[in-house]
């Protein structure tokens, strides 16, 4: 039982990270109907920027609590801004010129962009894994059954931070989409770009902003990933990207709460699979879920079924 609860917490943490990345996929798919294959690598960019800022600010595990919170906030903001510029550039360079071209064209440039980002990071930062010392340690012990030969179940500060900030971001984001003018124009573009343009919505700007927001959230996920696992390499975005995409599909692509839900479900499945079956095949589990969901339930948990128009 204790083991189960511990795994549940771990799953929620991992799922939050997947969910944050999945939002980027789902928003882009919702608005222009393409899979932004490079999104996983935007996440890597975010993680590398965060790593550089952490090193520049000299943040270590020994930094005092107040300073640490302020410094991490600063890291978060800087990383979000710089990664957002990457997201904007990718859209501008690789996707916008192909808008309206045949459907596989933007997907192929997206794969190209993903390769470019990965290898740009590899060439400029080296192929070796970058480890950092844990910055946030400790946690709240929930149960301690060590006396009876059990294990200690703890919710670490790190996990708490990830889950809480994901929750806050999700709430903020939902408000942004439902209450603001930007969210309105975004939903308008999602439904009908031409009509939205006729009614005075700047479609290009809205799409750009979608990419910017997706990239900013991916940067948050990047920082969380860095703090949680403490290691980075240029390849992390590939797996994380596919899994986040799986999460987006599982939740119903195009739906924001769906992305979050899908992320959490996928995180739980992966963690429980590793805990109870086999660690080696956890990626296979995730990929199989992707295939199964797409084949048998293409509209996902919360998505709307797609109607094919001729």
């Amino acid at each position, binding site marked *: 039982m204790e083991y189960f609860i511990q795994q549940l917490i771990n799953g929620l943490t991992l799922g939050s990270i997947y969910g944050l990345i999945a939002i980027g996929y789902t928003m882009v798919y919702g608005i222009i109907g393409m899979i932004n294959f490079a999104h996983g690598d935007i996440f890597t960019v975010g993680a590398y920027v965060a790593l550089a800022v952490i090193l520049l600010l000299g943040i270590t595990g020994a930094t005092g609590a107040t300073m640490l919170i302020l410094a991490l906030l600063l890291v978060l903001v800087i990383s979000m801004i710089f990664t957002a510029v990457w997201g904007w550039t990718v859209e501008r360079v690789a996707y916008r010129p192909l808008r309206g071209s045949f459907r596989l064209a933007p997907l192929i440039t997206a794969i190209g962009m993903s390769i470019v980002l990965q290898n740009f990071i590899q060439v400029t930062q080296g192929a070796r894994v970058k480890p950092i010392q844990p910055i946030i340690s400790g946690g709240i012990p929930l149960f301690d059954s060590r006396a009876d030969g059990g294990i200690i179940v703890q919710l670490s500060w790190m996990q708490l931070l990830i889950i809480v900030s994901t929750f806050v971001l999700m709430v903020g984001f939902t408000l942004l989409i439902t209450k603001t003018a930007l969210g309105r124009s975004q939903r308008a573009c999602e439904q009908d770009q031409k009509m939205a343009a006729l009614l005075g919505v700047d479609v290009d700007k809205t799409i750009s902003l979608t990419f910017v927001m997706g990239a900013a959230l991916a940067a948050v996920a990047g920082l969380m990933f860095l703090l949680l696992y403490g290691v980075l390499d240029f390849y992390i975005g590939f797996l994380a990207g596919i899994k986040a995409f799986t999460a987006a599909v599982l939740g119903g692509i195009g739906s924001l709460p769906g992305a979050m839900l899908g992320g959490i479900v996928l995180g739980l499945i992966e963690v429980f699979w590793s805990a109870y079956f086999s660690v080696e095949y956890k990626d296979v589990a995730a990929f199989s879920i992707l295939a199964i969901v*797409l084949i048998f339930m293409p509209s996902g948990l919360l998505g709307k079924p797609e109607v094919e128009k*001729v």
Partner: protein
Amino acid sequence: MAGETESGTGQEQPVATTQPEGAQIKSEERADAPNLVVDTGPSGLSERLKQAAVATFVTAVLGFFFLPIRTSIAPGGLDITWRWSLYALALIFAFFGKLLVDAYLLSPAGPRVRAMVSGLFILGFAVLYAWHPLGDILFGTGQFEELLGSVLIGVVFGAILLGLVLLISRATGKIGTPATGVAAQKKADRITSFGTWSLRILFVVALLLPWIVMFLFPNRDRQLIDISILILTYVMLGWGLNIVVGLAGLLDLGYVAFYAVGAYAYALLAQYLGFGFWMALPLAGLFAALWGLVLGFPVLRLRGDYLAIVTLAFGEIIRVVLLNWSDFTGGPDGIGRIPKPTLFGIEFNRGEGGFADIFGLDYDTIHRFIFFYYIIFVLALITHFATMRLRRLPVGRAWEALREDEIACRSLGINTTLVKLSAFSIGAMFGGFAGSFFATRQGFISPESFTFIESAIILAIVVLGGLGSQIGVVFASIVMIGGIELLRNIGFMSVVFGENFDPTQFRMLIFGLAMVLIMVWKPRGLISARQPSAVYKERKSIGADVVAQGEGH
């Protein structure tokens, strides 16, 4: 070199500036007809300078945490090294790159503006070159000449690539312009005749290649033949994938899985049952085709981009299984000592009964290289001829019809599932053949060789060559695989870049950039052989305008 990436990113911005929907058609027309001025870019010099400054600023932001800062592992954890010179160079490159590319390629300027832009560029470098203190401050003492040298090499290499690209697209006619009637007939003929004569020349060269190489480069013949074998392997893989992506229009991102199935099929048959290469080869193709059916059956109901992701997932699943099923596949250690092929039972060994002994030659390892070369040459040719024949069969026509319009296909009573499955499994079969050849050539295989990157390389070759074009795949393989392999071996590169310079680390970067740029520039690939094999009354090439309207997914 990293600076070039940056400027590469910067250069594209003008294309997008305030373009309305469908502007792609315009830019394609512009690329093909220089006389037709469609002004979507900047015109005056001040405007150009302003945009270049913006591009430089974006580059500065993008590169800030990647170019000047390098995190590296130090004794007490991670450490930061500063590289301001690289950053400065990238920015200068972004500025002038944007100006020059704009003025000459994207939104062609008048002679006055061109002269001013070029003058500015030359002046800028001349000042830096002549006035050492400034160069020293910007780049560090004595660094400037070295950096300049590397930039020049990059520019020269880029220019050669660009020239080749232009040459090919010139030779194949104006691609992308809508054409009907006589013009279309001529254009189609021109593409076909270009394909025919270049194929003939290539065929003769390829047939005699080992002898040409031995005659011209007697000291490096093994190495060069080895590279040719590698190129031919990719040509074959490209042709195999071309059936799936180019003809049937199914984007398969997991093609490497079938390559892996073929390689492992031969390796395992040899290890457990003692099969030789020639017996295992058809079986490997069969296994791969079967896997194509097994994987294809559930996924082929999916739409284009979903299909791509699921095939990618399947490719990864196969790799992970190969990696973890250690008892059977050897896991990460792979399988070694895979037997070499024999020539009707004759082995290429030293000593009695070997090839050299029987034919009365002196033993030389090059015999085996030449033998390998001809095996892959024949396999690739088989792939080519099978594809060309299949295209004339009903199933091949159905593939092309499917690529153009799936709904119309279904309305006409074509069984799309069957058609898709046949494309998938035939493509997989050729991947399987190539895989078993790879296994026997390497003598050792492990899951390392079958990562997603490999799929991406093959896809890049198909895309760059032009979806559906056979000759395009050959050119793309030669340039992308051969070009990079040769770079590695050119002596002066290490003189300029230092001893540890390895151009292969830039390989994927160049691949990715080329993929993006070529797709943006010519979405149908360099040689877009989109004319259908079967025609009614007259040939019509499919113009970019039709494509842009969403036809022909």
